[in-house]
């Protein structure tokens, strides 16, 4: 059996918020180990992660730096991992989000959500808005209907476009809704305006942008896909995977027992047909069921 690759983690005075979550989310064949400049490197270390408010002077390569916000930090309240180039470090984009991903959320890109609206006999153009006072939905330019806040995930799954900030924006991105928000909302979630979300300075502008988005299928599709992928990439698992990729940590191959991991990585829901088919096709293989399927899931029972 191949020994796991080791990621040497150098922690200074402050432990970054979210570090544990990211290290816990490392792939099973990558093992984090504590490291110190005063001690010999742990055997098998293939890359380094420095957690510090200053950049290391003579880092061992390849390496990444988890910038702990210092006194001169900007208004970001989340840690940022610097780009993990083996030779240099520049401000990075691996923002970590510790927000929980909505359990039931499934990305529904505009092509499919248009089909769902048709199937549910809903208007072809449907915009949902989440504001402090609650939720509203309707056809752009017509009277909007008020709704309970707990209907937001449904709107986020079905609307042609949504207007939201804060937690509602996060939910909308989890459902891959084409979204419009304000500048602070985009910055807080590490989203790139025009690429991941549209940004409007005031409510009227945001409503207008959402109405335009409801008419622009191509733009809505690009925005929805990008916003969803960016939001997911900020989850600890996404950051951990990207960190390994940038550090060039070699991955060991998968086997039949990797089926479950492969399905997980593709975002497959627990009760989907393909999971049942995969389980049926591996049930006769020694070890496949016990090592390939998670016992804590209903699908295993």
């Amino acid at each position, binding site marked *: 059996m191949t020994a796991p690759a080791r990621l040497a983690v150098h922690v200074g005075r402050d432990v970054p918020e979210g570090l544990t979550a990211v290290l816990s989310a490392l792939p099973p064949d990558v093992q984090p180990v504590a490291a110190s400049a005063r001690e010999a490197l742990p055997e098998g270390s293939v890359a380094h992660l420095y957690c510090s408010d200053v950049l290391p002077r003579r880092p061992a390569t390849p390496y990444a730096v988890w910038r702990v916000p210092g006194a001169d930090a900007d208004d970001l309240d989340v840690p940022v991992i610097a780009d993990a180039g083996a030779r240099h470090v520049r401000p990075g984009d691996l923002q970590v989000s510790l927000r929980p991903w909505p359990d039931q959320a499934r990305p*529904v890109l505009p092509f499919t959500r248009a089909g769902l609206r048709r199937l549910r006999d809903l208007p072809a153009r449907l915009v949902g808005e989440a504001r402090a006072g609650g939720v509203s939905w309707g056809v752009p330019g017509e009277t909007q209907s008020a709704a309970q806040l707990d209907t937001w995930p449904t709107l986020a799954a079905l609307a042609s476009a949504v207007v939201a900030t804060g937690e509602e924006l996060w939910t909308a991105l989890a459902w891959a809704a084409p979204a419009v928000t304000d500048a602070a909302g985009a910055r807080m979630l590490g989203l790139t305006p025009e690429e991941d979300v549209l940004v409007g300075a005031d409510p009227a502008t945001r409503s207008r942008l959402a109405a335009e988005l409801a008419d622009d299928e191509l733009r809505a599709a690009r925005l929805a896909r990008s916003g969803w992928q960016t939001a997911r990439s900020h989850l600890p698992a996404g950051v951990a995977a990207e960190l390994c990729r940038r550090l060039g940590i070699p991955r060991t191959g998968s086997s039949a027992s990797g089926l479950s991991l492969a399905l997980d990585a593709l975002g497959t829901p627990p009760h989907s047909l393909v999971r049942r088919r995969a389980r049926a096709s591996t049930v006769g293989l020694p070890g496949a069921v016990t090592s390939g399927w998670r016992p804590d899931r209903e699908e295993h029972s």
Partner: protein
Amino acid sequence: MDIVVCGAQKPFVRGGAEQHQENLVAALETAGHRVDLVRLPVAWEKGRLFDSPLAWRMVPVDADLVIATNFPSYFVQHPNKIVWLLHQHRGAYDGFEAGASWSDFAWDDVSLEEQRLLTEWDVAALSEARTVFSNSGVVSRRLARFNGLDSTPLAHPPPLHDVLHPGESGDYVLSVQRQEENKRPHLLVDAMAHVPAPVRAVMAGRGELLDEVRRHVEDAGLAGKVELPGFVPDAELVELYAGALAVVYVPEDEDYGYTTLQAFYAGKPVICAADSGAVLDWVEDGVTGLVCDGTPEGLAAAIRRLADDPALAQRLGAAGRERIADLSWADVVARLTAP
């Protein structure tokens, strides 16, 4: 470099995709690479849709570069993956939307959930690629619309491009295609009822509708006017192209379509329909061919126009030949293997 080209295989079926993959392998080998073609069977039905993608996910491929070509081969995992997309699962996307008889997706929750999950899987697998090229503008537009992903169209020369040549225009229009539903072979048969003699139609190619189209020709009393020779050997096909007045190619929403390009290599104008998909990347109405409205009458009018004005046919054909002058496999290989 050691390069693995990946493609789907529908057992006992051989068409444009298979030719494309083999030609790509040959072009890569010509450029000095060591190349292998890896194919896994695919099933298109809804219930078995995800089996082959999952199989690709688990296949270990040791190579310097992997070039995946079509659904579901782009699910292969490799740190240096390039996708040159010929098509996605058309039954789940555009075929479903168009209500095509060959799509088993319907307006129900199960179909839409399968489509949703496939979209999610496609985005995940295609996003892993270092670069995504597509076969044509149509395929790129579909990918952008259905999956929100960008890609770069990358055209390539068709089979026989090195032997096709212009020739004296004869008294027939040529159709070269598999006789199948999405190619709409009946359209040309119906159109020929409105085209006066001596113009004939030669419809080369086999396919599941061949017998049905032959019966259609008999029933319509067009036996002397429409010929359906079935399979035509390459050498004969080259001469058929060379001697044609024009080439008729009116598929529904085609992904690429070698016939158009082969016609241009032979210096012949192409008559297509306004909904022929990627054919329209090449056929510009009144410049390299004629675009009709997709009705038998409209197609017949286009054929008559070229039959009545051979100089126009020659001019459009020459413009088509000019249009494909820069296509080369060397360029394709350079772009696919660029670091």
